[in-house]
Structure formats: C-alpha cells, structure tokens
C-alpha cells in the first residue's frame, strides 16, 4: 500500500487482507521420485542439500501438476530446511504453479522480438478461441493461457511454450486457434519443437 495520495498499487490489497491458499491434498513423493531426488542430491556437497530444492519442486510438479502447501512442507522435510525457505523459492520462480492448472499450460512469449512478429495477436487469438483471459483456465480444465517473458528462441518468433518445456515456434497468429485443436487431438506431438530439427532428419 502506498501512502502517496496519487499513487496506488494495482492490487490495492494489504498483506494482512490476503487470503491464505487452501491446503490441498496431503503430499509425499512416490518411492521412485524420492530415489530420483536422492540421486540428484548427490550432485551437491552433503551439507548443501538445499541446492536440490528446485529439482525437488520440479518433481513435485511432475507428480501433482502444481505445488501445494503440503508439498512445500514435504519438500522441506526431505531436504532438511524450513517450509518458509521452500515457499520463498516457489513464490520467486516463474515456472512453479501455485494453483492447479489445465492439462496444457500454453504460454505465449510477449517480449520484444516475439512482439515485433505478432505475439500480441497470438495471445488474442488463443484468448478468443478459448473464451478466457490471460491467467485463466478454460471450464473443461484443458488449457491454461499465460504470457511469459523471452524464452531464448527469438529467431523463431513468436514462440509458444506448452507445459514448461515443449515449444511451438514461428506461430503464425492466424493459426493459433488451430494449434489448440491439434494439441487436443494429438497432444505434444502437435508442437514443432524445431530446436531438434537437425536431429530429426
């Protein structure tokens, strides 16, 4: 909250008014995932296990789609740090989802090189097709639409990233609606991912 009369923060909400997130289902790593995490933890000195917090959160997200409060507590216990320290990480990094998301999280890059080639129209097209705004999930729970900042593939602008890892490059704005259809029909195979182009031929 700002105290300057003309200046008001966008959310307009004081910290004390913020609602706590619902707790969600209890969480524990599956034994296989726990083993994977322990394997990753060997990359760091034993007294610096905290380095494995980000990999642990990725595994959480793979297992349950988003990072819930019980998952944060579980990660803290497994790593040997406080839940606050894990929450600090979850709230900072853009790739962790703190609420349940759709089956396909479609993120459109909105930074300069993509914007110069029509990224705004890609977002508008997807938003129109799904009838949702940026940040929302469609009623069927299939798609969540988000915007993201430059993902380092500006020569293939505009770029769309799905589920934090699969890319669709050179997305013609007028074809954005069709991309959703093919995603629904054939899943991630619908994406170009042409960064592996050479390996494919």
């Amino acid at each position, binding site marked *: 909250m700002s105290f300057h009369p003309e200046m008001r923060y966008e959310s307009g909400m004081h910290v004390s008014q913020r609602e706590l997130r619902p707790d969600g289902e209890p969480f524990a790593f599956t034994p296989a995932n726990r083993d994977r995490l322990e394997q990753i933890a060997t990359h760091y000195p034993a007294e610096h296990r*905290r380095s494995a917090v980000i990999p642990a959160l990725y595994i959480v997200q793979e297992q349950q789609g988003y990072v819930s409060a019980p998952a944060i507590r579980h990660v803290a216990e497994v790593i040997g740090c406080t839940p606050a320290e894990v929450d600090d990480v979850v709230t900072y990094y853009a790739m962790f989802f703190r609420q349940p998301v759709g089956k396909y999280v479609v993120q459109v890059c909105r930074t*300069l090189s993509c914007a110069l080639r029509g990224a705004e129209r890609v977002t508008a097209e997807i938003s129109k097709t799904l009838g949702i705004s940026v940040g929302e999930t469609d009623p069927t729970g299939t798609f969540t639409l988000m915007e993201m900042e430059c*993902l380092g593939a500006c020569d293939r602008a505009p770029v769309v990233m799905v589920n934090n890892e699969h890319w669709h490059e050179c997305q013609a704005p007028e074809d954005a609606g069709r991309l959703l259809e093919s995603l629904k029909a054939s899943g991630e195979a619908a994406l170009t991912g042409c960064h592996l182009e050479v*390996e494919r031929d």
Partner: protein
Amino acid sequence: MDPVLTSHVREPRGATLDAYVGRGGYEGLRKALGLAPAQVIDMVKASGLRGRGGAGFPTGMKWQFVPKDSPRPKYLCCNADESEPGTFKDHVLMERNPHLLFEGCLIGCYAIGAKVAYIYIRGEFSHVQRVLEAEIEAARAKGYLGKNIFGSGFDCEIYAHRGAGAYEAGEESALLESLEGKRAQPRLRPPFPAVVGLYGCPTAINNVETLCNVPLILTNGPEWFASLGPEKNGGPKLYCISGHVEKPGVYETSMHVTIRELIDKYGGGIRGGRTLKAVIPGGSSTPVILPDQIDAQASFDGLVKAGSMLGSAAIIVMDDTTCMVWLAENLMHFYRHESCGKCTPCREGTDWLLKILRRIERGEGTMRDIDLLADVASNIGGKTLCPFGDAAVAPVLSTIQHFRAEYEAHVREGRCTCPADWRAM
C-alpha cells in the same frame, strides 16, 4: 571467417561424443593437462579472450583472481541462463556441441584448481538439460571426466543444474544464490565470487560461449585466436539476429563485422524491403542505435564508440513501422516482471516507469510525464545493487533521447501515432 564454434551444428548426430572426438575433440584438454595450471591461465590471457556473457571482462584475468592457496574447495559455474531478451546462442552450442562446452569447463577447472563444475541452465531449457545429462554420462563412461582424467591425476565432475524461470538468475551472484537453492537475488560485493562464491568458496563464473572458446585457444594457440578479430576483440563471435529481418538466426563471424553487414548480409535485410528505424545491438538492456550508426563495428569496443554496447550480441532490428514508445513499454514490462525486488529503486521504479509508459502509449499521458520518466530513470540508474537497474532504464532513456518527438506526438494527439495497423504487419 569460417565458423569454428558452430561448424558442425547442422551435422546429424554431431553432438555425440564419438563425433566430437572424431573431429579432434578433447585434444585441448589433453594439452592443458600437460601444462601447469598457471601456464593455461597465461595462454588464455595471451589470447585476449573476453567474456561473452555481457560485460566483456578478460577471462584469463578472472581465473587469476581465484586464490590458488585457499584451503577451501573451488568451483567453476558456467552461466547458461541465457535470459537477455534477444539472446539465443548458448543453447545452440549446448544442444549441438555439448562436448566443446564440457572440454572448456574441464580446462577451466584445471586452471583454477576446481574439481566440480556446475552448468546453470535456464528453466525453459529442459531439452538442453536432457542433452547435457546424456552426454555427461557418455563422457564419464569413456573417462573424459570423473577420476584421474587421461591418467594425469586430475579429477573433475560436471553437473547440469536447471533454474526455474528468472532473468535475474543470469547475474553472477544471483546465479550462485539460485544454485544454493534460494531466490535468485544478487549479493553485495565485495567480496567478489572469485574469493567468496558458491557455498562460500572461491568460484569462477563464465558464460557458455566464453568457455567454448577455451579449447580452441589450447589447440590452435593464443596468437591464432587473437588474429581472428580486431585488436583486443579476438576470436570467433556468435551473433543473434531477431526482429524485422528476413532471416533471423544465430550467425558466427569475427568481430570485424559491422552491424550493417549483420543485418543485410547475414540477416537477409529488413523484411519486405522496408526501411530500418532502429537497432538494439546487444540485448534489451543496451541503448538503441540509429540507421546512421550501423556502420559501427559489432565488437566490444566498436559499439561502445557508437554509444551502446555489444552485451550478449543480441541484435534486435526494428523497421519503420515500430512505435518506440510501445517498444519502451514492452521492455519495461519485462524489467518490472523480472526485477528481483531486493532493492527499492529498481523494484518500485520499474513499476512506476511501466505505468507512465502505458499511459503515454495509450494517449493518456502529459508532457510532464516525459520528463517524469527521465527523472524516475535517473533515480534508478547507478543507484541499485546490481547492473539490472542500469539495464532497465537504458531503453527508456535512449528512446527519449532519439525519439522524443514520437513521445510528444503521443501526448499531443492523444493516441499511438504509428500506422494504425502496424501490429498486424
């Protein structure tokens, strides 16, 4: 200049260990292990190699700052965060030539006395992580890394560590924090990471492209390396060309090249035969340059002379349809989103700059707003904990400097004054 870093990127299976060894790979490491660590550093210093991550700091000197007599373990961190808007070169090297990077890491570790190197990859590069991890396993199985490499008694491990979406993690001290499992927020310096870095131990941090040049220096000699480019700007360089050009992409050449050649010869010229309006020569945080400046040499020193910077060699090209107020707003959105929030001028200032730019772009601004932008910007630049603050204000200040008339037209006419359908073009 014939490409040397990217000469094999189009070869199917060119990324594998066998292919790399087949073209003479790991010979630089073999040579390095026959020398004393100080001799390796001397060779890198003699080559004049400057960091490719943004600042152009001499790599040999950086390695020399790592105290040799410290009883603590030492680390090498490879900065593969590649988040500067417009930059997309490092992932090409990692996907298509990963062993070149490993060889550079191993030589770096040997030179500074480290036994572990971490490659910090940005979160969006999970495909890169998969390639790196598979190739690390392949290299370990054949004894190129692990214990007693080439029977020399030198042990070294390389791990790929993936971040989770944060531009600021590319700043070197924030990268270390992130690698320690915390928020990517910079540390106060001094002490510098060379002395107190990862886990409080001496650490060298180098960009991917920087480390990829190191094996070439060992195999071909420092003189060869220096002779590739202009004085003090030696070696091969990768340029990322994006925006309004016909053929966006990554191109390798020497730093003799000019911005004009990069746009016309490599980038295929401005798309649709339109005319050039402005160029951002080194990633979003470098000041824009104008069409009459594009004969500047695209080298570290050449672009400083032109009033800008080479940065990460990310050349973003804008044609005459581009609104410069919109451009400043777009980049300010990026900076507000990515500010790590540790220091007040940057955290608050980027938010206010974005608000003011938005209202000018929408046609709701006043003439006073233009000066207000410059005023707020002057309270961020040079007053922050890390160089992010200077980076964030560069696009605003340079567009006001060169395109003030465009800002004023927005205010006067109460609308965006660029062609109405320019975003559709």
